[in-house]
């Protein structure tokens, strides 16, 4: 059995080292994020946790020691909104997140309606929804953790870009289900990857308006239908809770309230994620969340560079997730096509958003939004840095900030004693053009980055995974 494991791992092209229980990286520059940079310093990892960190942290006898001369150690990056680990939710090739594909958006679009997937179809009603009571496009009871498939090829790809953790959501339909925090380890059992199984409900909307707009052809179809539906489901959940409590208190003589898993899923979620790209949408969704009395995280944020955005976000104090899939100029545009000033500004100033949010003190994290190739991710972060985000703030927005936003800063997001040993070791500064990621540690296990697939987008065979000593 023991022999079988490495063979299996080779099959899925994962570069895994032998895994000593104790290891130390010494003589490296250590970017702890939560504290000062140690240069040089030592990190000691035991049983998947950070045991010690310091300029002169003692190295336990028998520890596998890596000489970090010329290397920098960062906390593992966290993708704060992802579908990695659920292969069925990978972006379609050529669509969002496809290698080097431009999204020819004329104006910022709200998060597109994810297509119903087979998994959703199995639970969704066959006929079209005729109203909110049919609970359309809702799988609120789903936990991403239950759908994680360790064989998702994106796990290795994203990890190779320095991501050790994703907050993975069953991002489908209106109430998709709850996200889970996943460590991107290559393991046999998905359960070992789960850090926190339920962190909040993923909600998506569509502007509708097409002949068959929306998720399927039934209710809801227009944006206002989506909003009405979400509002109704929270009203229903509140009422359901009331009935359930009354029944639990004294069932005798009371009609039994029917079990409703859609409402159970909503009630179990401690926060919701709502989409908002335009300032108008930020305003709308923040008000909406306040009306629903739900703690909210907004995601998207394409117009967060606009001067109205930061004060608005600050007023509500809700954290936001900023998509790194920056609005791009259309490729080969029709020279006659009309471009609005806003669409030009979105391209020109979109990547300035993180820097501006940082300056304004709005809690934010970055998310990859379907980008899953290391070079793309590096370029995307670089754009934000070039547009005014300090490098250390970029790192924070991909480490400690998402950990704080999801309430797991006690175990993830920085290099501190007792935290999970998720580390990225580089030659050169993270996000620089020529920086090499040397190794990645997830739960204290070492991985080598997979080589970039050949240009042209094929996710072909990777080289023989090496072991770094």
């Amino acid at each position, binding site marked *: 059995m023991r022999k079988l494991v490495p063979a299996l791992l080779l099959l899925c092209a994962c570069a895994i080292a032998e895994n000593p229980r104790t290891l130390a990286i010494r003589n490296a520059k250590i970017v702890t994020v939560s504290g000062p940079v140690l240069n040089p310093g030592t990190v000691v990892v035991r049983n998947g946790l950070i045991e010690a960190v310091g300029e002169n942290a003692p190295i336990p006898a028998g520890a596998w020691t890596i000489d970090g001369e010329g290397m920098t150690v960062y906390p593992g990056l966290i993708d704060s909104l992802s579908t990695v680990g659920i292969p069925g939710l990978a972006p379609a090739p050529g669509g969002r997140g496809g290698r080097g594909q431009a999204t020819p958006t004329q104006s910022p679009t709200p998060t597109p309606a994810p297509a119903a997937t087979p998994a959703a179809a199995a639970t969704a009603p*066959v*006929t*079209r*929804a*005729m*109203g*909110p009571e049919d609970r359309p496009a809702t799988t609120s009871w789903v936990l991403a953790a239950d759908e994680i498939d360790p064989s998702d090829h994106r796990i290795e790809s994203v990890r190779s870009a320095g991501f050790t953790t994703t907050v993975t959501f069953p991002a489908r339909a209106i109430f998709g289900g709850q996200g889970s925090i996943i460590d991107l380890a290559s393991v046999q059992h998905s359960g070992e990857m789960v850090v926190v199984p339920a962190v909040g409900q993923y909600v998506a909307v*569509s*502007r*509708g*308006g097409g*002949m*068959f*707009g*929306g998720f399927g*052809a*039934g*209710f*809801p*179809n*227009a*944006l*206002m*239908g989506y*909003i*009405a*539906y979400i*509002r*109704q489901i929270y*009203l*229903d959940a509140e*009422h359901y809770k*009331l*009935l359930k409590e*009354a029944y639990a208190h004294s069932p005798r003589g009371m009609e039994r309230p029917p079990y409703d898993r859609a409402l159970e899923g909503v009630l179990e979620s401690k926060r919701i994620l709502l989409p908002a790209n*335009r*300032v*108008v*949408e930020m*305003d*709308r969704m923040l*008000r*909406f969340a306040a009306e629903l009395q739900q703690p909210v995280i907004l995601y998207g944020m394409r117009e967060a560079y606009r001067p109205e955005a930061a004060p608005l976000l600050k007023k509500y104090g809700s954290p936001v997730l900023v998509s790194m899939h920056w609005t791009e*100029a259309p*490729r*080969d545009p029709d020279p006659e096509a*009309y*471009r*609005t*000033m806003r669409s*030009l*500004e979105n*391209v*020109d100033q979109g990547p300035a958003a993180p820097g501006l949010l940082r300056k304004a003190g709005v809690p934010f994290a970055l998310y990859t939004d379907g980008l899953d190739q290391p070079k793309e991710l590096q370029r995307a972060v670089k754009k934000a840095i070039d547009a005014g985000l300090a490098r250390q703030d970029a790192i924070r927005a991909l480490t400690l900030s998402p950990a704080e936003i999801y309430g797991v800063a006690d175990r993830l997001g920085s290099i501190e004693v007792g935290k999970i040993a998720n580390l990225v070791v580089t030659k050169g500064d993270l996000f620089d053009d020529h920086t090499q990621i040397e190794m990645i540690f997830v739960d204290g296990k070492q991985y080598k980055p997979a080589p970039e697939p050949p240009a042209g987008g094929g996710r072909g065979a990777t080289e023989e995974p090496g072991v770094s000593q």
Partner: protein
Amino acid sequence: MRKLRIVALAALAPLYAQNIVIQNATIMTVTKGTLEGSVAIKDGKIAEVGEKVMMPQNSTIIDAGGQYVIPGIIDCHSHIAVDGSVNEGSVSVSSMVNIKDVINPEDIAIYRALAGGVTTANILHGSANPIGGQTIVLKMRWGQDAQGMIFEGALPGIKFALGENPKRPGNPPGGRGATQTVPARYPATRMGVEDTIREALNQAKAYKAEWDDYAAKVARGEHPLPPRKDLKLEPLKEVLEGKRYVHAHCYREDEILMLLRVADDYGFKIRTLQHVLEGYKVAQEIAASGAGASTFSDWWAYKVEAYDAIPYNAALMQKKGIVVSLNSDDEELMRHLNTEAAKAMKYGGLSEIDALAMVTINPAKQLGIDGRVGSIEAGKDADLVIYDKYPLSDYAKVQKVLIDGRVYFDRDNDVNGRAAKALEKQKLLDKEKQSQPKPAGGRGPVQ
């Protein structure tokens, strides 16, 4: 059709918001005659109108010599400023949806309507359903956020729709080309439209009874569990209670009478009949019901139920005692409602004031906001339009538009600012072009 290439920035408005006196103008108050003189504005309200007025402290003076001032135009039927589709067409009764939730204050149509003298508009859900979504009255306060656009205190409404649109089978999904998984939507006939409305109102009645019963129990000191709050029936309950206006899209005389009977049966009033192109045939009945009529000036024959329309409709209905307004239902038409009003002088021989009333005080009455807007009277909101020429003329151009005493549109500023904006845009276009990767010409570079 080419779209107007105007880029307007929020920075344009509001330009100033202090006390203002508009001088030397011809002031068409609509309700208090026409006079040569001044309008004094204080704290957003009209302080005084007359040949001579008291200057409020620190007033800015707008010299409107040779120009005309009319009350801000009110459009009783518009679909601008809506994010996403204006129709929740998946269901026959979509009363659970609310335009208020999807106001888009950045819709450029707002600025363009403003530039056409519109200061207030009734934003309606579409006509895909016998009972459509909830509606909202907005002021065209360009530059404000969604909440800032809402006409505070105006009673909200709900859209009803009769005739061809709601009965178009399975509207919009399904129907023609409906697949097996997408059944055609009921109703498919005018009979079905009536049935759908009655059925929904029956449900609303039962729902109201349930809540009334609950309230009575609570009042007696009991502790009952509250009924389920139903967003579909909630606004219909308000209709039955007279707390929400019904704006009903209709064309044919038979369906108009049908709806008036339905409203009678359920004990509520139809606030406005929208389009109502055959209204002249049943004007007496409409007048007796108390419903207002909001119609087109001379737009007809665009579908089968619009064949019996005549341009005298507005004038004929007016003469039977109906409060009549002329609406746009269209973002382009919305920009020159003054000439739509003028057509009522040609067709039907209305006076200029009666014609102007159809886009000012009459729609204000229909929306229940005539205490605030619709005419130039002391105490009303300072929502005013300054035209360079006689406003019921094709040649009149809007010079300035004020809402709540603030200038939200200024033609000179707009015109003068265009060059700078074009330049700014060109800069971004150039920048973007430069950053574009070189297009791979044909087969790519030869090695």
